[in-house]
């Protein structure tokens, strides 16, 4: 096996290069004083060496330095610095406890709060969004939303209103790896994407990587959205909550044993169904919609070297529709469940280990009944995964990460059952797709010189489609002529690939740097969408003997500069991405092409290209904060069986995308926020001519996606008032926001209304545009104690 050899050779070289000398290690954790939460990616800087490191996702850091005296400065955004002098003559363990800085009405410039991290770190094409920032952005219906907030960053585009998907650098919504505490989330939206499943009160960290992701991430071509939940305050009990117009939330957290273990439970539910119930009368009685979600977490620190975390997410949406006049009823429940168990272990101060086991389940059911006829459609994914991750910090010059990951997938892309009276229809067997998904990785981030830092990673991957499985073989007329039965665990198709990842950062000076990255990615599972909107009915499907892995190569380069002593962060990034083996449905299919057939017999394959420039300016200090992001980009597709083999704009093509986010702290009571977005209109395929067949009007369609809907733009504002505290424990604030302030009717889709009267020889067609959201005000009462 070629890739094993390459992999181990790589590890061996790294160890060799590091060398041995008289060095000692300082290691420990960086934590928040008030809650005891770990602070990930906090800076731990050695003044004398002008070198430093960052804490990992669990707040752990390690510095191996030559014997000597050092001044260690630890800093984290929003917190005051802590400086300690250390005499290093043997291995030491120190924990740093940081306190949040309180922002005063008069501007305070605390040295050290400013950071040139965006310039100095090797990370490019990525953003860390603190939850506090997300909470200040005006929100839709008063619901703070992680997914909507990242769509305000350059390079990330919303897939439209009523949709939870997002596009990163021209890639589809299934090309984003969304993780919640290491577990994959397959559908991150509630009701058709109006809200995401992430409850901001339970979230600690949001990290978005658009390109050049380090080798520990893999499996999706376009981005990684890594979200981690809070651990739970291990000092005191704390309650946060909010009552809004259509939903409410409550979070309870606290220590089980102070300093040692804590818990967090967070829940949210809409009550649109309760509010609208009295209005849904008569024949529609019984129709309604509600969603709820629940986040729960427990962690236990056995010792300074061992910690256990258990977390879970449970969410459900239920949509029911009744029309008693028609005798028709439909129920549409769907949801995600994720479970994570993690064990952190520190071996010898230089070696940190994390063992994670996760379970993830996404499913939807569509159950419709009409008098005697019942139709039920089920689609779902179940993942069982385990991964072992190591961080090794042999010296202050190298940060080495390596590990192994394994996931077992169980896909059920679409089972249907149908019944009339007592007769059950034969819609074909229910087919599961099972797969083994494995990867090894190793990544080293090291300084070649004071100005030049490199990150090199390699990720060998292996994917197997295994039985039991039934393959319908089609003849040239697309008729099923034969079936092949595979036994359980029998190997049907195997794919193995190596993904190299390289990036570098060259510092021109303290506030200026140039970065570049190159990465190759393979994606072994994809979303097969019959429609041009991401509906929850889209089915996830793995690579099989019919579907080869999707593959992308991305080049990115960027220039980063901070101004006015790190008050303004600016960057320009250019990217170019090529993609192969993209899938789409063959033209002219409907859902019954999936019955008595494998869904993947209906796919066609092609390639794509995506390139663009992203501009970003951000102000982080003072009363007025915010950012402006602008992306100029183009993305196209080329499929031999679609659009007669001619290149066409991808559905995700948005030439211009502009976001402006502003927050203003007037004083410690009043805070204002505003958002403005502008995007080029969606591409769509329209009919260009028509003719008669059997006296009926028939349409002839133009080239795929050759028409643009009107541009999308909208502004939102919000006002937040904090009630005076008077020294009591109870804090509360009220938030008033307006979505779509100037009531722009943005196109959701267009359709044509044709009236024919053959006898009088007249046909008139009018184009109609449907818009989703008009101006929507909302009010939310937030409290905590």
């Amino acid at each position, binding site marked *: 096996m070629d890739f094993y050899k390459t992999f181990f050779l790589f590890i061996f070289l790294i160890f060799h290069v590091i060398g041995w000398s008289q060095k000692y290690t300082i290691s420990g954790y960086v934590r928040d004083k008030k809650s005891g939460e770990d602070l990930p990616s906090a800076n731990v800087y050695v003044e004398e060496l002008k070198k430093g490191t960052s804490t990992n996702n669990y707040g752990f850091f390690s510095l191996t330095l030559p014997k000597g005296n050092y001044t260690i400065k630890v800093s984290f955004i929003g917190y005051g610095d802590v400086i300690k002098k250390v005499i290093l003559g043997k291995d030491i363990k120190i924990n740093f406890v940081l306190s949040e800085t309180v922002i005063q009405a008069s501007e305070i410039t605390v040295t050290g709060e400013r950071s040139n991290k965006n310039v100095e770190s090797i990370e490019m094409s990525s953003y860390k969004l603190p939850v506090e920032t997300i909470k200040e952005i005006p929100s839709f219906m008063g619901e703070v939303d992680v997914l909507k907030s990242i769509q305000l960053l350059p390079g990330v585009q919303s897939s439209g209103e009523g949709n939870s998907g997002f596009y990163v650098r021209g890639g589809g919504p299934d090309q984003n790896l969304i993780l919640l505490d290491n577990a994959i989330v397959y559908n991150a939206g509630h009701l058709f994407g109006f809200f995401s499943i992430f409850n901001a009160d339970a979230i600690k960290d949001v990290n978005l990587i658009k390109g050049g992701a380090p080798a520990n991430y893999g499996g999706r071509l376009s981005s990684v959205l890594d979200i981690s939940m809070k651990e739970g305050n291990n000092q005191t009990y704390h309650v946060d909550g909010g009552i809004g117009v259509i939903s409410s939330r409550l979070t309870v957290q606290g220590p089980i044993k102070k300093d040692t273990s804590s818990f967090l439970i967070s829940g949210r539910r809409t009550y649109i169904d309760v509010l609208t119930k009295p209005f849904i009368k008569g024949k529609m009685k019984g129709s309604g*919609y509600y969603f709820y979600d629940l986040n729960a977490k427990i962690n236990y620190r056995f010792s300074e070297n061992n910690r256990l975390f258990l977390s879970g997410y449970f969410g459900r949406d239920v*949509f029911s529709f009744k029309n008693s006049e028609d005798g*028709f009823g*439909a129920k*549409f429940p769907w949801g995600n469940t994720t479970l994570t168990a993690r064990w952190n272990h520190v071996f010898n101060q230089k070696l940190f280990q994390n063992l994670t086991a996760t379970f993830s389940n996404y499913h939807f059911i*569509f159950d*419709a009944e009409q008098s005697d006829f019942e139709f039920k459609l089920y689609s779902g994914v179940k993942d069982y995964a385990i991964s072992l991750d190591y961080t090794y910090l042999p010296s202050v010059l190298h940060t080495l990460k390596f590990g192994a990951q394994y996931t077992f997938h169980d896909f059920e892309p679409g089972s249907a059952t149908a019944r009339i009276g007592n007769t059950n229809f*034969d819609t074909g067997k229910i087919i599961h797709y099972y797969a083994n998904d494995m990867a090894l990785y190793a990544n080293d981030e090291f300084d070649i010189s004071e100005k030049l830092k490199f990150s090199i990673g390699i990720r060998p991957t292996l994917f197997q489609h295994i039985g039991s499985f039934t393959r319908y073989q089609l*003849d040239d*007329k697309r*008729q*099923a002529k034969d079936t092949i039965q595979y036994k359980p665990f029998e190997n049907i198709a195997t794919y193995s690939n190596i993904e190299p990842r390289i990036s570098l950062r060259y510092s021109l000076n303290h506030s200026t740097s140039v970065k570049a990255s190159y990465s190759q990615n393979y994606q072994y599972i994809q979303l097969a969408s*019959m*429609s*041009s*909107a991401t*509906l929850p*009915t889209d089915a996830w499907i793995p690579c099989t003997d019919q579907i080869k892995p999707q593959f992308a190569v991305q080049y990115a380069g960027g220039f980063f500069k901070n101004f006015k002593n790190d008050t303004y962060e600016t960057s320009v990034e250019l990217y170019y991405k090529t993609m192969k083996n993209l899938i789409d449905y063959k*033209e*002219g299919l*409907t*859902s019954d092409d999936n019955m008595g057939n494998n869904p993947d017999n209906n796919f066609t394959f092609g390639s794509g290209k995506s390139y663009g420039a992203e501009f970003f300016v951000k102000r982080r200090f003072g009363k007025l904060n915010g950012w402006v992001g602008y992306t100029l980009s183009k993305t196209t597709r080329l499929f031999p069986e679609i659009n007669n083999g001619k290149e066409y704009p991808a559905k995700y093509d948005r030439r211009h995308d502009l976001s402006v986010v502003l927050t203003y702290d007037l004083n410690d009571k009043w805070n204002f926020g505003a958002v403005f977005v502008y995007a080029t209109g969606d591409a769509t*395929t329209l*009919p*260009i*001519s028509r*003719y*008669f*067949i*059997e*006296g009926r009007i*028939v*349409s*002839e*369609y*133009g080239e795929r996606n050759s*028409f643009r809907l*009107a541009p999308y733009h909208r502004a939102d504002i919000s006002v937040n008032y904090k009630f005076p505290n008077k020294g009591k424990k109870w804090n509360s604030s009220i938030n008033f926001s307006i979505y779509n302030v100037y009531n722009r*009717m943005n196109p*959701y889709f*267009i*359709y*044509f209304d044709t009236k*024919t*009267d*053959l*006898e*009088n*020889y*007249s*046909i*008139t*067609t009018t*184009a*109609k*545009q*449907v*818009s*989703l*959201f008009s101006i929507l005000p909302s009010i939310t009462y937030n409290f905590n104690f």
Partner: protein
Amino acid sequence: MKRMVYIFLLSLALISCEKEITVDMPTPENKIVVEAAIEEGQYAWAFISRTAAYFAPVDSAIIMNMIVKNAVVVVTDGIENDTLHLSLDPYTFPYLKYVGSKIIGQAGKQYWITITVDEKTYHAKTTIPHAVSLDSLKFKPDNNQDTLGFIWLYLKDPDTLGNYYRAFTKVLGKDSVFLHPYPSVSDDRFFNGQKAEYQLYRGRNPLEDNNYNPQGLDSAGVARWYFRTGETVIVKITQIDNLHYRFWYSMEQQFMTDGNPFATPTSLKTNIEGGAIGVWGGYGVFIDTLKIPKYAKN
């Protein structure tokens, strides 16, 4: 699937808004449309017309212009040639029909058609498959009805995969042409080699649209889809070849997804080569007549 979209759209209707817009589109090149067939036991026929731009207003003059009157249409079975001549068919839109006079369709044979319009030539090929006969026909009244109902047909599908059916009905004294229900075509994927039953309803004749309201009810409130007791109905069950089936299937799909913003729109799958669109299809024919008694027994 259609129901799911309908519900979603309905729920959106509660919060969304609609307005009329103008769509700016370039004028397309007009193509020639061929709607032609050869049935077992009949001469070939063809309607030749042109496409019109989607938003162009259509009135009687424009419709008349869409009909091609100067086409040269030739059908051959490989041995003989038959040049179709223009004639008037008052019962079928668009009324001007090219009709053959020499070649009569025979089961098991292949037929080619050549159409020349304005110095451009288009070709197509089709076969007339052997017909599959019906076992029986039966009239069943609809729920809560005595005199109104549908016709059920019973047949046994041949053992080979790849039988494509298209069904037509004609009510004597009422219908001047054969009408077909929608959907009208079916392949034998789900019932290959087995006995099959299928419900037929009376199809729509676009020329009669004004006799019915938008819900399909006539002035007495009776739906146009019903057959009635006392009627004599001729049922024609035809066999068509694969490319012919693909054309009607794609047309019926387009009607299903028409107006659905979530479906990928597709043009019809023509079997004509050379740049024209439409269909040239052969039909293997089996005809049976059902006399529905005045007082139906279940």
